[in-house]
């Protein structure tokens, strides 16, 4: 079961996800990157079966790439990207659903703010200040409820993320040794830290 969560702060968003790719009693991979860059200033953290996770992430990111190519480099706002993403989930819902729960984080230069959107596989969409998908929510939401406030800086937001990871390693049944953390701000999408390098084949 994947752990995916995110925190919005003043001027950006942090997305974090565990790195394990497992099924039943087997771990296939422990350096999977579940956070896909969608555009120069947004990323999608996805949880779900690996097939849908990869398929959906790539589908959305390539469609957004086509948009930019067709429209002279114009970038969709985070709000528009999130609604587009939700629309795709909604259309597929009654045909062949994507069993993915996601968190879309983006930075908009026009407002100078980051924004975080929570989406589940029923195509529900909500703008949030912080959010979790999966079992993580039972452990981490209460930490975020207590610690999050308006106007956090990046270090404070990272501190919340680290606290959540620590809580999970202490109390969550499943052992998740590796987490990947990405920051989305005015400088784009950057990997802050990872437990295991996704580039290692």
């Amino acid at each position, binding site marked *: 079961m994947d752990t995916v969560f995110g925190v919005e702060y003043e001027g950006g968003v942090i997305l974090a996800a565990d790195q394990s790719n497992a099924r039943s009693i087997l771990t296939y991979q422990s350096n999977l990157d579940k956070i896909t860059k969608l555009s120069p200033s947004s990323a999608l953290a996805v949880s779900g079966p690996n097939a849908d996770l990869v398929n959906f992430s790539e589908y959305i990111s390539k469609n957004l790439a086509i948009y930019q190519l067709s*429209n002279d480099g*114009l970038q*969709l*706002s985070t709000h*528009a990207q999130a609604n587009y993403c939700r*629309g795709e989930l909604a259309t597929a819902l009654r045909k062949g659903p994507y069993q993915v729960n996601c968190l879309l984080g983006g930075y908009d230069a026009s407002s100078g703010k980051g924004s975080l959107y929570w989406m589940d596989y029923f195509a529900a969409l909500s703008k949030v200040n912080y959010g979790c998908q999966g079992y993580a929510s039972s452990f981490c939401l209460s930490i975020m409820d207590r610690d999050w406030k308006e106007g956090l800086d990046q270090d404070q937001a990272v501190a919340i993320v680290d606290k959540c990871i620590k809580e999970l390693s202490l109390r969550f049944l499943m052992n998740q040794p590796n987490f990947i953390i990405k920051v989305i701000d005015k400088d784009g999408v950057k990997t802050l830290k990872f437990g295991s390098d996704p580039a290692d084949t």
Partner: protein
Amino acid sequence: MARRYDSSTTTFSPEGRLHQVEYAIEAINNAGTCIGILAKDGIVMASEKRVTSGLLAPSKSSEKTYKISQHVACNVAGLTADANILIDQARLRAGRYEYQYCEPIPVEQLVELVCNYKQAYTQYGGLRPFGVAFLFAGYDEHYGFQLYQSDPSGNYSGWKATVIGSNNQAGKSLLKNEYGSSSSSEEEEEEKEGEMKVEGAATEEISMPDVKGALRLAVKVLNKTMDASASSSEKMELYVMSLENGQVVHKILNKEEAQKVIDEVEAEATPAGET
């Protein structure tokens, strides 16, 4: 020579021309003039209202100006029936985009979609092109106010000021001389002096008029292009797009407001000794 190659849209002539498309463009030159002018704080679209018969029931809606969405409107020159189809298409595409992205469609994208629709009728299907030219006026947060012109070929371009319909060449040449010159805005006189110091550029900077100045200029051009010598508010339709509290506002001037602009233009003209 053209006879053999002009009856089918899907055939090039030996000179490399598509005659059907050119004939469609010709059809528009008989239609009522439409002028579009981009201003600092909005867009003005002025059109000639052609009353073909006194027996016609007065129309409640305009036959020239159409709202495509909250932030885009257009002026039509050409076959009204053809225009209706394209306007439906424009409204549909604008609506679909907003449904998908929960955001208004960037103006150029909408224009390109309508134009791609028109282009199909110049390449396949064996159907004639649409005999319509459009002026699209729109606002989006990426590029602000924009004015586009499109024709039956499916070509479009962005303009600061342009004219379509009858006598458009005369209108365009008048705009070329007058747009951005001192009559359209009072601040310009001081601006021009400041600009001279910046660069020793050979070309003069064109400064954009404000909506009021653009309205006067549009009426001036319309006076020139219209058949009748006397201008009146019945024969003109003046549309303004502007921003109010961050929202786009569409307005067609009523009789009094339109007459006021016409009178202002007349007052400007008379000191120069024009009749």
